[in-house]
């Protein structure tokens, strides 16, 4: 019987309550450890296709008669259109339609550089861009607000400040033997997905719309597009077969989709609106910069007495208040914790979720602060973290559904113990050191998500669901889960996804949630199909159901008999076995979180300020690991992306005009392969016994979270300098070294 329940859903650390329907039969979790397919390394099903350039991304799709859109974007951080003349653009070669600021989402009062003002559809993208350059605008430039601290003073905020407090910080302060106070800053970081934001819109009549889009959430796009154009949701079809990265910036449709849809409606032809790399770096979202004023107190034995943080997020014109204070509230056992988070509303492009939004920034501050405290207390940084390990979520007193952080710490020990050896390799120029940082994040996923499993006469199975694989290999993981349940080799499983018209509702691929949300539904669907196979096999081979099982493509009886699966499915000729499954609720009254620790080894050239990260060991607890090969790729990707914002990436704005100075990949430095250190991945592969029929948590975000702090702490170990501002450019490194040399050594402070 279907059961209606009310449950809590979390995405990117934001909770909402919702009703869901769950099936009654709950599967037992599989035993821990590698199984037949699950838990074993499986190469990506579509890896070859991607490597050979055969995978068709949204960027590759060319529909018959398709036009190309280009957008006129505001060159000013704050301005008003006094007069606009699109006449020359309309008459330019190839142009089929021009939209002015009167059509949403275009605007004549752009509130940040890059805001869309007008748009053109033409036969080629070059013609469209040329036409855009012919639009004449008379601008009235207005004074932009660019300074986040000034915005907070003026109460120009994106939302009410988020104040959270437990215990009493003043009491904790009174009980402290040592207090450390510091200000940390993190920069604005750009996602730079390889595939830029883009969509193709094609109308079928005036009430049906197909959207091909590079997205992390086809159902979210369907819902928002349907709402905007007043269509029934089933009249909007959203397709995303292959996807070139999103990192949180592609959770919704975005202005470009609406521009494409409006131009398609105006011309009666399909229209593609694809951002250029410059537009991508102007207005496709960003990890907003932060200023963090933090304090921590502890007793001499290292017990934390209080944590206190004020976080200013430079949110931009739109977006939401990322949870920069989250790590401070969640990571350690501490009775007295107070955080206040501000989101400054500025004339800068809106932020968007970016791989563990808020937690990446907040962990840099918190975990550097902890190391500064450890130095003051003369306690080993790893030991300090152990002493403040939390056994339950102190925010609302809930037990964790699982937590293997102490095991992560235990596995970190051999790497941490290399400190003396690494430091000893220092010379007059190159100083070497080791640092570590812990990590907490969400990643439990949640309902609803659905999957179907279809088994044909040939004994092959298809998993059908409306989820998207955003490049993380989640389709391969789904094939493994279905293969395990059906006792089939993984190469006999097809995964059909990425089309809202060809599968049931599935999760957003954000918040490290695809595997924990989708995997259990796929397993349930496969189990439903497996049950039916066993039932018909029992009838066909005259056995009791309880003695039959599925293994290696065979129906196996405990009395020794076995029959190939296709023998029985073949009987059905064109008949099919159909299974369906849904994602059940998260464990009631528990907090589902992911944990981990990273250990970094660095070398610092104290004369030029060059920082070389030589090695990073990543030890994470994400519950059961479905595909260790895919998982280590995720960890490596997270660390490399983390390395970028730690050392070289920064969106620079002209401080007077608010103009973006780093729109190209020449000016905005993401790491190259020559910057990548040795990366060692070690996943504590213990299923979360309370979480779903899989026990798997998400892994997309955790690996990027502690990287910056681990590197900064290694730099402190190597040089004695406190780096409190990202990115740690050579200049920043030299500044920190100069500051360290001006201050008396720590030993003298203690004496």
């Amino acid at each position, binding site marked *: 019987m279907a059961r209606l329940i009310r449950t809590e859903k979390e995405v990117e650390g934001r909770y909402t309550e919702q009703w869901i329907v769950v099936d009654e039969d709950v599967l037992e979790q599989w035993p821990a450890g590698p199984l037949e397919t699950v838990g074993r390394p499986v190469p990506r099903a579509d890896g070859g296709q991607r490597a050979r350039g055969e995978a068709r991304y949204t960027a590759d799709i060319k529909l018959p008669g398709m036009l190309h859109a280009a957008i006129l974007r505001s060159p000013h951080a704050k301005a008003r259109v006094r007069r606009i003349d699109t006449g020359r653009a309309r008459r330019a070669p190839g142009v089929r339609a021009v939209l002015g600021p009167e059509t949403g989402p275009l605007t004549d009062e752009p509130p940040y550089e890059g805001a869309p003002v007008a748009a053109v559809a033409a036969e080629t993208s070059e013609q469209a861009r040329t036409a855009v350059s012919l639009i004449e605008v008379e601008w009235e430039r207005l004074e932009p607000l660019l300074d986040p601290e000034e915005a907070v003073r003026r109460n120009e905020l994106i939302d009410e400040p988020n104040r959270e407090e437990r215990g009493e910080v003043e009491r904790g302060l009174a009980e402290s033997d040592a207090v450390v106070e510091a200000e940390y800053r993190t920069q604005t970081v750009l996602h730079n997905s390889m595939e830029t934001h883009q969509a193709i819109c094609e109308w079928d009549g005036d009430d049906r719309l197909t959207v091909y889009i590079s997205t992390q959430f086809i159902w979210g796009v369907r819902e928002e597009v349907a709402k905007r154009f007043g269509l029934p949701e089933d009249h909007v079809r959203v397709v995303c077969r292959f996807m070139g990265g999103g990192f949180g910036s592609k959770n919704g449709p975005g202005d470009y989709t609406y521009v494409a849809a409006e131009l398609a409606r105006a011309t009666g032809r399909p229209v593609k609106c694809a951002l250029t790399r410059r537009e991508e770096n102007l207005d496709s979202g960003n990890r907003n910069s932060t200023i963090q004023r933090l304090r921590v107190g502890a007793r001499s034995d290292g017990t934390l007495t209080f944590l206190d943080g004020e976080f200013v997020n430079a949110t931009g014109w739109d977006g939401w208040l990322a949870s920069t204070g989250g790590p401070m509230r969640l990571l350690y056992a501490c009775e007295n914790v107070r955080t206040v988070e501000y989101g400054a509303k500025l004339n800068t492009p809106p932020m968007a979720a970016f791989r563990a939004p808020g937690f990446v920034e907040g962990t840099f501050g918190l975990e550097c602060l902890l190391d500064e405290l450890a130095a003051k207390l003369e306690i080993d940084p790893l030991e300090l973290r152990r002493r403040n390990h939390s056994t339950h979520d102190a925010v609302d007193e809930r037990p964790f559904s699982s937590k293997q952080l102490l095991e992560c710490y235990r596995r970190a020990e051999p790497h941490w113990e290399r400190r003396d050896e690494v430091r000893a390799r220092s010379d007059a120029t190159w100083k070497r050191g080791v640092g570590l940082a812990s990590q907490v994040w969400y990643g439990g996923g949640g309902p609803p998500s659905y999957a179907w499993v279809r088994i044909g006469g040939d004994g092959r199975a298809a998993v059908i669901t409306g989820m998207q694989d955003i490049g993380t290999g989640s389709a391969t993981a789904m094939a493994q889960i279905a293969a395990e349940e059906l006792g089939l080799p993984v190469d006999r499983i097809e995964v059909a996804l990425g089309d809202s018209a060809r599968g049931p509702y599935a999760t957003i691929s954000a918040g490290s949630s695809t595997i924990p949300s989708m995997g259990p539904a796929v397993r349930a669907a496969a189990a439903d199909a497996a049950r039916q196979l066993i039932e018909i096999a029992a009838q066909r081979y005259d056995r009791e159901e309880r003695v039959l099982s599925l293994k290696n493509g065979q129906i196996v009886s405990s009395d020794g008999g076995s029959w190939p699966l296709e023998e029985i499915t073949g009987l059905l000729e064109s008949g099919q076995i159909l299974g369906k499954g849904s994602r059940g609720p998260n464990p009631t009254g528990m907090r589902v979180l992911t944990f981990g620790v990273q250990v970094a080894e660095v070398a610092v050239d104290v*004369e*030029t*300020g*060059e920082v070389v990260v030589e090695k990073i060991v990543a030890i994470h607890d994400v519950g059961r690991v479905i595909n260790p090969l895919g998982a280590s790729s995720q960890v490596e990707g997270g660390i490399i992306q983390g390395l970028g914002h730690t*050392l*070289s990436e920064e969106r*620079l704005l002209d401080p007077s005009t608010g103009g973006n*100075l*780093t729109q*190209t990949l*020449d*000016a905005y*430095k993401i*790491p*190259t*392969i*020559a*910057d990548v250190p040795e990366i060692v991945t070690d996943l504590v592969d213990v299923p979360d016994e309370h979480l779903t029929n899989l026990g798997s948590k998400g892994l997309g975000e955790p690996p990027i979270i502690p990287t910056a702090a681990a590197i900064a702490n290694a730099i402190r170990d190597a040089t004695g300098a406190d780096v409190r501002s990202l990115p740690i*450019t*050579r*200049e920043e490194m*030299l500044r920190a070294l100069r500051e360290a040399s001006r201050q008396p050594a720590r030993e003298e402070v203690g004496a």
Partner: protein
Amino acid sequence: MEVFTPRSLAEALRLKAEQPSAVPIEGGTDVMVELNFDRARPEALLNLNEVAELRGWSRDNGLLRLGASLTYTEAMAAPLSEQLPALAEASRTVGSPQIRNRGTLGGNLGTASPAGDALPPLLVEAAEVELSSVRGVRTLALEDFLVGPKRNALEADELITAVLVQPSGARQTFMKVGPRNAMVIAVCSLAVSVDQERCELRAAYGSAGPVTGLVTAPLDEVDSFPERVAEAASPIDDVRGSARYRRHALRVLAERGLQRCLT
């Protein structure tokens, strides 16, 4: 935009004389960036890829003649790399393997960017630039050829045909500071040589002034030389780094370069 593809140097020079606004293109690692970013829309391109006379390098009585089409990859290979070791080091720091296969010395000189990686090692080696036109051939000292940021002494009808170097045999090196390990335009760079025979210290900096600049001193002024190099530069603040950092880095690079060349 028209593209001319001459098959010989004579044809190239004739075309350049007839179409002085035609922009010469070899590997396209600079020109195509300008075109793609819409910073330049020349009426015509003069594609020099088919001009055999510009390719490779030769030696005549000890004088090296490096064709304008010499690629960075070719500059990295022995035996040329043994004759001009700092140029080989600089070439290794250019872009990616693909860029090094396409980018040429002639292009680097033609662009005359203060960040041009080949320029400091060539300045330290007192290279000359051979300029040709239908009117004839002239040579200019590289210092005189570089007249400003992205400006050189080429006349409108002239093409760079070669770089001429008498290898000094001096110990020399090239160092570059960039915001990451590969695919970077220098924050600043420095070539250094210690010429025991002529009793001279030579250094040339890149990305630290409007043009690549040469600094020389007698051999016995080793101690003050790094400071002199730093003072000679006139760097600016930009997205890649501050003037203050560039001066500091030049001092450090000069110290290290001297150390390498003296031990």
